[in-house]
């Protein structure tokens, strides 16, 4: 492809626009090239993150919410975003860029479904959050250890089965026992859940899909900062 030559000739804002298109199409290699090109032009890692990756993933998230894109496309976009993040992450830490917040996320004990949960994890990363992904079959103790270790702001729990979603109640109960309930915002999601369930187990919010999860997390972080 002749894109590399074009890239050198493009102004920054056109490269940022191209990044949005490439994220949408899930082109990881191109994203890495574009990130590197902007870094070479001394754009700050934070600006590349926000104006390139985060705004690009916002479009992906919106189209996912509206049923234009489905899980496969979003996962490929998230992979491309991740490839760009890998370049940026060490630089963001070095330059002391502002942080969105830290989220500990996992599929609860007894449940191995992690497609939706990983989608949320990747979209959160795409929105600039630090994400600690505990994987599947996560016990209350594992959630709590990770919250303490990473000084998390948000706990995200996922379950796909009616037989496993009730474990979320156990985790929240354990949080209370350990005096950690007020430290974290608890977001829950998964196919069989709904708002009434989230309310009943005393989570802070039910998130219908990954896009909603990101919006909710942002909202809570804003409330915290104010």
């Amino acid at each position, binding site marked *: 492809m002749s894109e590399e030559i074009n890239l050198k000739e493009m102004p920054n804002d056109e490269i940022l626009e191209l990044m949005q298109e490439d994220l949408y199409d899930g082109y990881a290699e191109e994203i890495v090239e574009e990130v590197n090109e902007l870094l070479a032009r001394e754009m700050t890692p934070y600006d590349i993150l926000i104006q390139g990756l985060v705004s690009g993933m916002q479009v992906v998230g919106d189209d996912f919410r509206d049923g234009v894109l489905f899980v496969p496309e979003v996962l*490929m976009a998230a992979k491309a975003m991740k490839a760009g993040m890998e370049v940026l992450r060490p630089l963001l830490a070095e330059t002391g860029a502002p942080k969105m917040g830290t989220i500990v996320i996992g599929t609860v004990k007894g449940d191995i479904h992690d497609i939706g949960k990983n989608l949320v994890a990747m979209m959160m990363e795409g929105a600039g959050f630090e994400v600690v992904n505990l994987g599947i079959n996560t016990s209350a103790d594992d959630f709590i250890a990770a919250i303490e270790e990473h000084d998390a702001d948000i706990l995200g729990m996922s379950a796909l089965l009616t037989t496993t979603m009730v474990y979320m109640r156990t985790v929240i109960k354990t949080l209370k026992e350990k005096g950690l309930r007020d430290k974290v915002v608890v977001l829950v999601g998964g196919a069989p859940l709904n708002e009434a369930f989230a309310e009943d187990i005393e989570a802070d919010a039910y998130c219908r899909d990954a896009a909603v999860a990101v919006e909710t997390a942002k909202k809570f972080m804003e409330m915290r900062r104010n």
Partner: protein
Amino acid sequence: MNPLKQLLETGQPVLLDGAMGTMLFDAGLEQGDPPDEWNVRYPERIKAIHKAYVDAGSQLILTNSFGGTHFRLEMHNLQDRVHELNKAAAENARAVADAAPHTVVVAGDIGPTGQLFEPMGLLTFEDAKAAFADQARGLADGGADVFWIETMSDLDEVKAAIAGVREVSDLPIIATMSFDTHGHTMMGVSPAKFIETLGEQDVLAMGANCGTGSDELEKAVQKMRKTNPDVVLVAKANAGIPHVVKGGDIVYDGSPEVMAQYAQNVRSIGASLIGGCCGSTPAHIKAMAEALGK
């Protein structure tokens, strides 16, 4: 002749069963416990659930093996017992079917692996196919009459399951997907695409199960009928939407009356195999039996 083909030849709708998971909870399954292990730990409880459905009028019962691939059993460190647990699942259903006063088909239930295919995830077609073949071997050895692939969202996974079953058995295959995301499966498959793609495959019937309430499921089945007027259709809807009641129990808001109406609706659309998914109980199936003139 295969008992399901015989039932279909009568031209009458075939009444399936309702939820297994919902019933297992009522029977004392604890959160996070492996339902599949109950096939050997509490075979009498599993048989009692099957029998309750048969007594309510079910002509086809699904084995308790939804999570029976090694991928899902691994979480409970049961991955080495695929054959044993699936065989026991089929045997439990077989025993009830054989003792029933009417013809009851034993359908070996096969659910998704829970893994993502390449390039989104790590699962290869060959690995998935091998896992489904192992599960199917157990189900066939336990006496299943047909294989029932359900709650799928990825077409490749359905194909892998069909290929896996065909490695070990020639018995009829039924395949259904769950259309729970803007009228598509989670992976973006539309009902029409499902029928168009799978119509070429070796399946006896296709349809929709689970998802988000019977209205959406009716729409999906309608689209399938429009796509292909000849395909044998399956409808297996949840009994409404889950709600939490005091004490933390989960109940579905679809009453037996709602499910009876749904049974008539999908029958008029042209579904031949009609049943319930999550939240539906023998009471729902009984109401559906009456609605279908059973």
